[in-house]
């Protein structure tokens, strides 16, 4: 059923259809209404046997879910920004303990200075956590991705947390038409979670305990194997989802013109606007293409190589900074595509919620094509300012 809903509801409704056993969260802007809507559903008895637990902090919320997930419960949380960072200690353990917790991160910038607005610094910060990361373009995509996230996370060959990253405000606060999933459809796709190992009084176990040097490495190797293998499992589930719903979101990477000499890489809600600018440029006869990067972890090296095979100039729109180096997505692109020798131009735009107007995107692509800018990393749309420290 097609309905105009807010991004929050789009997530909450899809999570409800996934029949989680435990939801535990702590509210933070711009995630708040996701868990408010789930709390409404819980209060109205729409969540079946699900437990909704309010926590005293994000640290508490993540900790409660580690316990829940270890007992074999399908577990969900949502957070943002500082909340994700406060969760991070626990989430790293969840990954090491191989707990398939699914979380939605409503992307928001990190302090300091305090900013409640959108960029992708928070989830990018979690890059090395062994948590899968998928970036979302619109509210139908996030609605469709939730069942896939549970299914991939809970796959016995994976067993790792899955983080769905959606831009705060741009998506969470937007009303738009979403085709709401029906229960039978999701039930058919996503069976109940059957944990291969779980905490139980009948068979006492310990999770994530002490591993001295003779053992630690092998645990980490198993984690790396699991997340590297998760890529193919995701692709399979994406395809199954397409068959069921008729909505094709593509694979890890969606290259809309793989023969392009100038490739523009985006992640998240900016993609639609970039696609629009690029299609206008194509009509002018310019050989430009959009590469939408959906999966950031595991990083889809082969897909990226394929998508960039003809590109001699690669433009990356970064929504975060790897301070002390450069744009975090460009780092990955360069490492994946190093054999090609293409020039990579990486531009940090829209940090802390600054709007990214259409004209700015056009201007950036134009100046790269015309050779007016050197390859490398730069901030775009910066105002003149004085250093505060004399």
């Amino acid at each position, binding site marked *: 059923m097609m309905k105009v809903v807010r991004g929050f509801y789009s997530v909450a409704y899809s999570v409800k259809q996934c029949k989680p056993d435990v939801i535990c969260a702590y509210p933070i802007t711009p995630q708040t209404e996701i868990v408010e809507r789930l709390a409404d559903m819980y209060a109205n008895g729409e969540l079946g046997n699900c437990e909704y637990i309010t926590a005293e902090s994000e640290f508490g919320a993540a900790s409660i879910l580690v316990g829940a997930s270890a007992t074999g419960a399908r577990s969900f949380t949502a957070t943002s920004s500082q909340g994700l960072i406060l969760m991070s200690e626990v989430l790293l353990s969840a990954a090491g303990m191989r707990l398939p917790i699914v979380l939605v991160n409503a992307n928001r910038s990190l302090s300091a200075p305090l900013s409640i607005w959108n960029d992708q610094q928070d989830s990018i910060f979690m890059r090395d956590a062994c948590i899968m990361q998928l970036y979302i373009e619109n509210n139908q995509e996030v609605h469709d991705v939730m069942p896939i996230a549970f299914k991939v996370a809970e796959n016995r060959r994976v067993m790792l947390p899955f983080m769905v990253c959606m831009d705060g405000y741009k998506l969470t606060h*937007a009303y*738009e*038409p979403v085709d709401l999933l029906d229960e039978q459809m999701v039930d058919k796709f996503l069976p109940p979670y059957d944990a291969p190992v779980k905490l139980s009084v009948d068979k006492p176990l310990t999770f994530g305990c002490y591993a001295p040097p003779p053992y630690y490495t092998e645990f980490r190797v198993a984690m790396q194997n699991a997340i590297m293998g998760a890529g193919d499992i995701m692709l399979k589930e994406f395809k199954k989802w397409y068959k069921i719903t008729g909505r094709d979101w593509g694979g890890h990477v969606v290259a809309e013109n793989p023969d392009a000499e100038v490739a523009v890489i985006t992640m998240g809600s*900016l993609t639609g606007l970039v696609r*629009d600018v690029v*299609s206008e440029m194509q009509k002018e006869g310019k050989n430009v293409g959009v590469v939408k990067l959906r999966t950031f972890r595991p990083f889809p090296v082969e897909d990226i190589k394929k998508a960039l095979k003809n590109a001699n100039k690669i433009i990356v729109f970064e929504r975060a900074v790897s301070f002390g180096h450069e744009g975090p997505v460009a780092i990955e692109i360069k490492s994946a595509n190093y054999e090609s020798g293409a020039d990579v131009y990486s531009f940090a735009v829209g940090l802390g919620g600054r*709007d990214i107007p259409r004209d700015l995107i056009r201007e950036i692509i134009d100046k790269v094509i015309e050779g007016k800018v050197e390859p490398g990393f730069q901030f775009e749309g910066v105002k003149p300012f004085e250093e505060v420290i004399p």
Partner: protein
Amino acid sequence: MTKFINYTSTVGTKNHEVVFILTEVRFHGRGGQGVVTSADILAVACFKEGNYTLSFPTFGAEKRGTPVASFLRVSDKPIVLRDEIYNPDYVVVMDPSLIGIVSVEAGLKDGGMIVANYPDSADELRKILNTQAEVVTINATKLAMEELGRPITNTAMVGAFVGASNLIKLDTLKETIVEWFKNPKLSEKNVKLVETAYNMVKEG
């Protein structure tokens, strides 16, 4: 009702290379006046008439009284643009005290229209804004005080906007308002408010 294609998939967007924006509306007001809600109500109402819609706010720290804005796009094609609206077809001003503080008329398209909650005449406001654009004024604060007893002007302004723009039918808007306000007393009052404002604009 238009048939909804699979608008969000890659396949869908490929079929619609050209994004055909029909109408862009920017709402100005102050926190607490329902600026965001106005755009949202219209997103739902316009969808009912078979359009693709997208509404979103500029978001402050939710302080009452601070100038805020929200945006609405309505199209017969899937909407992929999520940047703020710099060149609106319509501007709706919820609060007269914003005039002179926020340049509400900024970027308005040629042939665009400003619908404002303003106690004086349209000519007066056109002079102050120094604009050639069509201006429609209505004293929405007075209407809202009479009907709701509170200066929340969003429903009155939504009614006035629909009356001035003819974007959708009054009945569709009324139906949306009834669904929006779950409290029947409140929805009744707001439906009346919408109707009054709509008719006032229609009668000039």
